[in-house]
């Protein structure tokens, strides 16, 4: 089929429910949206509004009850788990609120891990450049447990960026950070994304962050209410 290539991400009528019977919660309720390539989109909403679930579905971390997610025209849920994982590591970078670094690996290893998983060669120079950029050039051998929150998140960003994925999904990346670190982290993400022409979709509840976005989508009760 012919796909509109300027839309990197198309969400079609996505539904995801948790629980059963009376306890059933529609975390994502017939949501549809399109995101353009190269743009910074912020998804805002109260906690429990289903924005995280939406992001996880977009990233293929979970499978929906109905609906489709197309990334670069490809229906990701039509892929088998194995292919989905491969697709994810090639196309999508994740940044989580609680960093999710691997505690047994040092900063450098954490960053190059996605490359290793993809059997790709590591170019020393690339990694060093990224390390300088995130300001952790002197901490390449540090273990995650001695890093501050900002440093951890910057490492996580570097990890998400190292494979140059087309789509970066960030789930409240600054939720655990103070406002200055937050500003720094967001600036970093934004500039990296614009530098490489990547698309950034970020969940946030912070007004200031949302301002920096090219587009803000508000979600309430699993539905897009404001675009």
């Amino acid at each position, binding site marked *: 089929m012919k796909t509109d290539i300027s839309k990197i991400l198309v969400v079609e009528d996505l539904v995801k429910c948790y629980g059963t019977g009376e306890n059933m919660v529609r975390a994502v309720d017939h949501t549809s949206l399109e995101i353009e390539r190269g743009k910074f989109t912020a998804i805002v909403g109260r906690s429990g509004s289903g924005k995280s679930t939406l992001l*996880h579905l977009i*990233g293929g*971390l*979970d*499978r929906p009850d109905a609906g489709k997610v197309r990334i670069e025209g490809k229906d990701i849920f039509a892929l088998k*788990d*194995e292919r989905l*994982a*491969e697709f*994810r*590591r*090639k196309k999508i*970078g*994740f940044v*989580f609120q609680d960093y*999710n*670094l*691997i*505690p*047994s*690996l*040092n900063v*450098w*290893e954490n960053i*190059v*891990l*996605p*490359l*290793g*998983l*993809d*059997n790709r*060669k*590591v170019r*020393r120079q690339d990694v060093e450049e990224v390390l300088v950029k995130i300001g952790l050039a002197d901490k*390449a*051998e*540090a*273990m995650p*447990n*001695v890093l501050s929150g900002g440093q951890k998140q910057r490492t996580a960003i570097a*990890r*998400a960026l190292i*494979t140059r994925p087309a789509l970066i999904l960030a789930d409240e990346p600054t939720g655990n950070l103070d406002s200055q670190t937050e500003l720094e982290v967001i600036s970093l993400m934004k500039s990296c994304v614009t530098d490489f022409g990547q698309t950034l979709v970020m969940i946030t509840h912070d007004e200031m962050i949302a301002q920096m976005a090219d587009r803000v989508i508000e979600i309430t009760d699993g539905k897009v209410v404001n675009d």
Partner: protein
Amino acid sequence: MKMTTRVAFDNMKYHRSRNILIGTAIILTTMLLFVVPTVGKGMVDLQFAATNRLYPAWHALYRNVNENTVRKLAAHHDITRYGLRGDAGYMNLEEASAAMLYVDQEAMELYKWSLMEGNMPVKEDEIAVSEGILDELGQQGDIGDTVKVPYQIFRGGELDLTQQKEFRICGFLKDSKESREKRTYIALVSEDFLRNEIPKEEIAFRFLLQIDDTGDPTTDEIEQKIRDIAVRFGIPENDININQDYLEANYVDPVFIPAIIVIMAVIMLAGVITIYSIYYVSMNHRIQEFGRMKAIGATKRQIRQIVLREGMCIAAFAVPAGLLAGTLVSGVVLKIFATASETNNGYVKMIKEILEAGEINIYSWWEYLLAAAVTVCTVYFSLVRPMHVAAKVSEVEAMRMQDAGRKSKSRRKGYEYLTIGRLVCRNLAEDKKKSVITVLAMAATGVFLMIVATVLSCADPRESADGSVLGQYEIFSDIEENNKEHPERKWSEVQKDNPLNEALMKQVEAIPGVEGVDVFSSLHVSGEPFMEEDMNFLNGVPEKYAGELEKNIVKGKVTYEELKSGDKVIADRALLFHYPDLDVGDRLKLTVHDGDRTFEKEFEIAAIGQYGSGLTNYEYLIMAKEAVDQMSEYNSSKFFHVFADKDYDSKLHEALKEIADASGRIELRTWKEDYELWKSSQAVIGAACYIFLGILAVISVLNLVNTMINSVRVRKKELGMIQAIGMSDSQLMKMLQLEGLFYTMGTLFISVGLGSLAGYPVFLYAKNQGLFEISAYHYPVKVAVIVAATLLLVQLLLAAGISRSVRKDSIIERIRFSD
């Protein structure tokens, strides 16, 4: 319910999967702890019961006791029961023999003899006979009938002229199958008959006695008492006959209890290691839990109590289950043991009979109590350290730190790029202690298994039989040195008219299938440093074995040519067990007995060697046959080793048997009998060892299961993270497989490597000890392969199972997972 118990109980339910593992470990431990003593005791009990039935009940008998001494002995306070037997003489029968004995009522009971019908003889002309005797006499009769009996009376140590007398049958004894076969019978006569026929001073009674057994004396103590009494009453050592089998069957052998204790200690150790390691592995994970508890006000004591009670709660479920399983297993095992033995002699049959009749109570309450108590101790020991660790947790640290409890470095050189393999290295290096503990705990069992397997694999029944019997058949004179009744069976007597002569050899060689006969000669020697009652022989080995003799020398050097000189000998190592002072170069001044002739001769121990009992025939001073023959004026051939073309040929055996029976003075031993014996005994022991080790192995596999499951559980979130950034399921599977492979390979290398290395010295030890007549080292390939295959299989299944269970949750559920 107390709060701590309540919490402990809830905890137990919450950590179900781990506690099922611990529970299984406890069940298996309990089972082993129950099965080992139960089967041990059961076997012993069965044997005792069989012994009690088959053997007479006297502890000892003194021979040649006169009436005076009898009276004195009877008054001895250590003797609780005694009976008298007086041998009057033998019936004069053509081919059969029938002893005419006077036996009093007590002795009847101690011998476990009883009359089928009728009464004991009281009057002089009364006699109790058996059907067999009547048949031999060619007469018939019933109680009250008279029979004519020709007999010879024992007088002054020899049989008198034949007399004839009419006896009235007063009772009947039962003929055993064996007595029918051997045509040896017993007839009972009255005391009056004995006293009438033999002068008072010549009557030599046999005094059967039982020693006072209050206070549960050991066999050694009872034997000591019997000897003490004998010494006090001037009864020579030769006249004492101790009923060893009966004593062992009824009184505890001092070696038995320590052996059981050692085995139970090993089991306990395995249990402690396993349970501890299961706890250790999951402890880090639970530190937060205890930290929280502390934060809401639990004291150290309470935390300790919670951990302890949780363990005990599991034990409360697992111990009864283990006892139940143990009850079933030990029953089955006992049955297997009792029936596995292929030799079908009366003893084994009796054991089977007793077992089937259920006459022996295999299970007794103290075994259950013991197993339960020891298991609880095991659980407690394995909990001591986790309790301590849990109590030490600081609340703040536990709450804050996700990886509390481990001290990780702040910086570390890393890999420039990562592969799955390197990722695995990192994971394992992350908690080296845990990885090492797991591998070592498993390897310990593996090493143990390999060592035992080495010994068992070396125990090849064929080789053992080869070692214990040279050739396929062995013909030897019926020699008894200390039998007063058969002085003609002394070697010195046999030498004078040796049935193993040229004619016999020709006869044997002529039998079809016989390929050759090797003759070993022998001469009795005595003197320093050998003890008087110890019989030692010069063993004349034919030249054919020169190579083997020289090859198996362990110390010193000597050639067969030198041995031919007659003044050099090789001492077998076995001799050194009795006389450890002997060494190469020692010169022994010995008296050589050749028939009635004796002469002094000096021998030099030129070397010490190690040979199978087939070669030595328990005669440990080895020299050339030529030299021995030269020393002797008689024919000192003692053993004919017959080599045949087949391992066993019943026709050949029959032929040899005929020859032996015809002579009446030689006996026959076959390679096959030994082979069967070795085979069955090794099979039983092997099965027992492998069952035992198998259960131990299961316990240690549990350890592996736990480590793997736990390493995944703890890292559930981490694995989710890695998957979120692009690890595919197959990569995850590969990673888990590799991690498991580390444990498996680590265990494998250590157990097979170390086990094989350690196996060799153990083999040497077993060889020196003459265990199973082991002679050649065989690497236990089969076991090594099975161990490797099992480990790999377990680990593959485990990794597959685990990764499936991991995949069950979606990635996002795993990332959110926090516990």
